[in-house]
């Protein structure tokens, strides 16, 4: 083959040429600008992108990779391991009948089902999660809070995680002590055997690996609230996020 550059003038430095364009820096800065812009539009695009990805990627693969969109947080590793033989749910504080339920007793308590969205304060959401578990009303009927009980504090097998909501919030229609998720017993990463689900609040209020419920007269700060997070973690109306 002929050498195509034999008539090239070696005196011309190769960097300087009228036919050169700074495409690289345009792509670099354009990408950065697109990324910053994407922060603004990502929340509204995320659902569409996930649905498009769901069409392209088999569910088994996407579940294995992304776990259905869940991200797992724990504050005192390793995660607690549920043992049906030793598990106990202590319910006490300002109540007429303090109660400790074994796992067979929790499992035998009549429950309720719901499908709700789960929102994390860091920005991710999982939509249409099917939960089954105990309604707060069942707990309240069981232990009978005293009239001065105004707060409900949740304790976790993962000490020192703790959180608290008001009794009124506890009795919202869609609050659940979930024991199954999407039709299967709660997995360890999701807080087996029992976790609090409060769809109208961010996930940090939903204590996992639930080990105790205490009815209180005075407010107290939960694990993340001690670190500056809002006590009333309403989705879209708290923690600096405006819907």
């Amino acid at each position, binding site marked *: 083959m002929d050498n195509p550059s034999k008539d090239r003038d*070696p005196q011309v430095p190769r960097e300087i040429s009228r036919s050169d364009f700074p495409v690289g820096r345009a792509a670099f800065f354009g990408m950065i600008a697109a990324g910053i812009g994407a922060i603004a539009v990502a929340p509204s695009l995320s659902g569409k*992108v996930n649905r498009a990805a769901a069409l392209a990627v088999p569910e088994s693969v996407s579940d294995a990779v992304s776990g259905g969109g869940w991200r797992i947080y724990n504050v005192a590793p390793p995660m607690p391991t549920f043992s049906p033989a030793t598990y106990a749910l202590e319910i006490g504080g300002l109540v007429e009948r303090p109660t400790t339920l074994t796992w067979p007793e929790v499992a035998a308590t009549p429950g309720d089902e719901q499908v709700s969205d789960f929102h994390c304060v860091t920005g991710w959401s999982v939509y249409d999660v099917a939960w089954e578990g105990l309604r707060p009303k069942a707990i309240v009927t069981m232990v009978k809070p005293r009239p001065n009980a105004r707060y409900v504090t949740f304790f976790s097998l993962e000490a020192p995680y703790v959180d608290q909501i008001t009794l009124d919030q506890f009795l919202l229609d869609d609050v659940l002590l979930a024991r199954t998720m999407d039709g299967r017993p709660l997995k360890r*990463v999701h807080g087996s055997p029992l976790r609090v689900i409060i769809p109208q609040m961010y996930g940090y209020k939903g204590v996992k690996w639930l080990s105790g419920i205490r009815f209180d007269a005075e407010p107290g700060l939960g694990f993340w609230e001690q670190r500056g997070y809002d006590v009333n973690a309403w989705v879209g109306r708290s923690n600096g996020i405006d819907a």
Partner: protein
Amino acid sequence: MTSTPGWAGPTALMPEPGQNARIHRFSGAERTLHWLLAVTFFIMLGTGLALFVPRLADVMARPVAKEWHVNAALALAAGVVALFAAHWHRLRATMRDLDRFDRDDARWLFGWSRLWRRTPAPAQGRFNAGQKLNSALIGGLMMIMFITGGLLLLGERNTRYRFAGTVIVHNWVTWILIALVIGHLYMAMIHSPTRHAMRGIVVGDVDRDWARRHHEKWVDADTAERPATSTPESALPK
């Protein structure tokens, strides 16, 4: 393609094919930058997946994974700054090589018909147009990761920096980077016409014949500019 006996000047020194003459492709600064990025990238990828994928949540304690993730990012940032400070001229020249696209690069990028016509690709410089574009995109995407990662960290401390889209963009860019890196690894380790390039980023030089096939304009320019020094003395014919 063969060497061109009879071409005047420097090419008289060109060895015959098979004589393994080498041409210097990557300086120490460039190689250090590349491997710093490679090592920190895979630390961030591994720890990031441990933070992200529920099935991997138990592999590594979350605070440990997070610490490694953040420290790898800081090490990369500090290393990039230090390398550019110490080797400004060399790396600025690299940036210029990557930044500038000429008409051959445009033909290289858009000349898809050569895939079925089997015509040769337009002659390329030290980096082909795809490599230039890839480096610009990887660089831009890494900056997005740095910005969104920084916002996630700041958002843990101050709600003013907390945006619903931050973590979503951080995730999207992760998948894009994984795709780009898989392509990069395929070209560097599996695809036989291109995998010789790995030698360049490991030891610095590549076979001149290979370079002439893939980066013809660069070899020509190198030959014209530095005829006596571009080829190691030991590789020159007697």
